[in-house]
């Protein structure tokens, strides 16, 4: 058995035989020709055929992946018709006296290089589109068809990287999964695969392609990003069970999707999802969460090698809000510290990072960073139902400072004539015992509380989360923690605020009843827990 690791882009398990995707034009030979007019005619004929194929693929993609994702093929048709592109092919044939395939291949290199060298990720990705249309054009000349051979058995398609048109051209009914050696989770292939509900593992490395052959038994685990080739019996059995579980979950999903989160005697609770990046929005919607209860904004800072600009942040936040179409999205402001280091923040090493310079403490000390984030957030607030939440609060004065900063930002935006939602909800995390104990003082200042149970437990029980030796001392159901949550809930409600839980305890089904009895208004959990939690809520009777 050999195991490879990559990025899983659709969480499910596939078991089946490998089918290695044959690249159509690995290298194009240069041939000297005598009749340039004939070569140009071959290009024209191939172009007509390519447009015909792309029109068919566009139609197929419209049905399978929707208009936004299908648009790329319309753009491919326009690119094939590009004057400069065609002029380049023609002049290479005429001036160098070479075959049409070679002229297309050189033109493809030049144009894709032009896009690849641009300092804009969107335009860089267009380089792949140029290569895709050029390969199609060459295939239309040599084989008369761009589609690769197909078998009758369902297979796991293994390739170096798949171009968008190749993904859609494949007969979906015959594909169990994709595994590619290269590519990113943002490539068209990954996005299309996700939309086609096919598990895919991206970027497993080139070793994989060298060792795989048609017919090898493979297991693809989209949950973990693992690929098993010639699995042993134990692995096979374990993943068959995982696959059965997936199927069961899917059935659960079908039954529970669209249903309310309401107990047998009519108490309703909101179930939202926790995510840490834009890429997880798909699973939030697929699991039918009512909103996003915790969106960790750290990814923007971690993915970047310098402070992300207001514009970069705005685009990301806006994308989340627009993708959630009117559903609540609660974004937590920057929560880093010595345990979640980011180089360019230049934070000093600390003896005890959990009790150190972190989260809101950094933001209030370095207001320029905080203000940039708040401006981006408020600008995004015009595009959906945003809530802003501050982490690691311990005192009234911290909340007052945060609110003052919000007011300044709102005033500036209003002066600049930039739209924002005046009623954007503001909340705080209850994750220190101090915040829970003075929650009666904090609640009047904000619209909502969100309990971070992981930190609240660590601080209340004085047990370091990172220290495995302490595990036997950490009682996650400790009465002290539960009492602090209950106290916070009571104080929230008495002061007109609502309260949610976004830590791991929210997904603990043995506590769901306890939380509902406390009057918790919202539970926010990882996307896969949304439906099991809904099932639990619907089975409870509180009175």
């Amino acid at each position, binding site marked *: 058995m050999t195991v490879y690791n990559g990025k899983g882009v659709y969480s499910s398990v596939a078991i089946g035989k490998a089918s290695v995707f044959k690249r159509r034009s690995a290298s194009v030979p240069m041939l000297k020709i005598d009749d340039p007019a004939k070569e140009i005619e071959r290009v024209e004929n191939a172009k007509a055929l390519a447009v015909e194929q792309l029109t068919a693929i566009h139609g197929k993609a419209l049905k399978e992946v929707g208009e936004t994702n299908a648009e790329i093929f319309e*753009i491919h048709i326009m690119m094939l018709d590009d004057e*400069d*592109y065609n002029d380049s092919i023609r002049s290479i044939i005429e001036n160098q006296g070479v075959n049409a395939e070679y002229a297309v291949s050189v033109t493809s290199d030049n144009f894709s290089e*032009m896009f690849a060298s641009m*300092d804009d990720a969107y335009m860089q990705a267009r380089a792949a589109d140029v290569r895709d249309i050029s390969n199609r054009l060459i295939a239309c000349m040599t084989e008369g068809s761009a589609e690769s051979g197909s078998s009758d058995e369902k297979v796991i398609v293994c390739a170096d990287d798949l171009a968008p048109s190749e993904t859609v051209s494949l007969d979906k009914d015959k594909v169990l999964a994709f595994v590619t050696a290269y590519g990113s989770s943002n490539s068209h292939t990954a996005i299309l695969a996700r939309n086609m509900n096919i598990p895919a593992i991206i970027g497993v490395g080139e070793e994989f392609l060298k060792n795989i052959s048609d017919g090898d038994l493979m297991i693809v685990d989209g949950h973990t990003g693992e690929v098993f080739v010639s699995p042993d019996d134990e692995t096979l059995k374990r993943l068959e069970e995982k696959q059965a579980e997936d199927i069961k979950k899917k059935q659960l999903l079908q039954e529970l999707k669209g249903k309310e989160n309401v107990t047998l005697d009519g108490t309703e609770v909101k179930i939202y999802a926790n995510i840490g990046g834009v890429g997880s929005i798909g699973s939030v919607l697929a699991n039918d969460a009512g909103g996003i209860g915790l969106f960790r904004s750290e990814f923007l800072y971690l993915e970047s090698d310098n402070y992300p600009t207001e514009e970069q942040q705005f685009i990301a936040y*806006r994308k989340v809000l627009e993708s959630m179409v009117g559903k609540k999205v609660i974004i937590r402001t920057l929560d880093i510290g010595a345990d979640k280091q980011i180089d360019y923040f230049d934070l000093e090493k600390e003896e005890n990072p959990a009790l150190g310079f972190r989260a809101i403490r950094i933001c209030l000390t370095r207001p320029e960073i905080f203000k940039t984030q708040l401006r981006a957030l408020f600008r995004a607030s015009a595009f959906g139902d945003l809530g802003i939440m501050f982490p690691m609060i311990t005192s009234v004065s911290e909340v007052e400072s945060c609110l003052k900063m919000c007011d300044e930002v709102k005033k500036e935006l209003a002066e600049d004539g930039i739209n924002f939602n005046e009623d954007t909800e503001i909340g705080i995390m209850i994750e220190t015992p101090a915040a829970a104990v003075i929650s009666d003082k904090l609640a009047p200042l904000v619209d909502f509380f969100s309990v971070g149970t992981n930190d609240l437990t660590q601080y209340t029980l004085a047990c370091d989360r990172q220290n495995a030796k302490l595990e036997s001392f950490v009682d996650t159901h400790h009465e002290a923690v539960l009492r602090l949550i209950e106290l916070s809930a009571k104080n929230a409600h008495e002061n007109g605020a609502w309260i949610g839980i976004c830590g791991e305890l929210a997904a603990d089904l043995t506590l769901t009843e306890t939380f509902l009895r406390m009057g918790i208004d919202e539970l926010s959990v990882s996307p896969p827990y949304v439906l099991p939690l809904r099932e639990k809520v619907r089975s409870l009777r509180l009175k």
Partner: protein
Amino acid sequence: MKEFSYTIKDEIGIHARPAGNLVKLVKGFTSAVTIEKESKPAVNATALMKLMSLGVKCGDTVKFTVQGDDEDAAAKAIEEFMNANL
């Protein structure tokens, strides 16, 4: 000859889709149309890939030059297109 400038308001700038539609629109007229982004040489507005490779982003100002028999109608149509889409 007609000239006018336009400042891009769209978040992503002149990306593939609007560029494609702009090319389509311009091809409907007989006039020659060029687009110029400051400090870069002007490109023919019917050249899709060159147009995209200008990398026109939100906030950038581009200058259009329209010359030909139907230049008045073409300039008006392009301006309307830019206002509606970019």
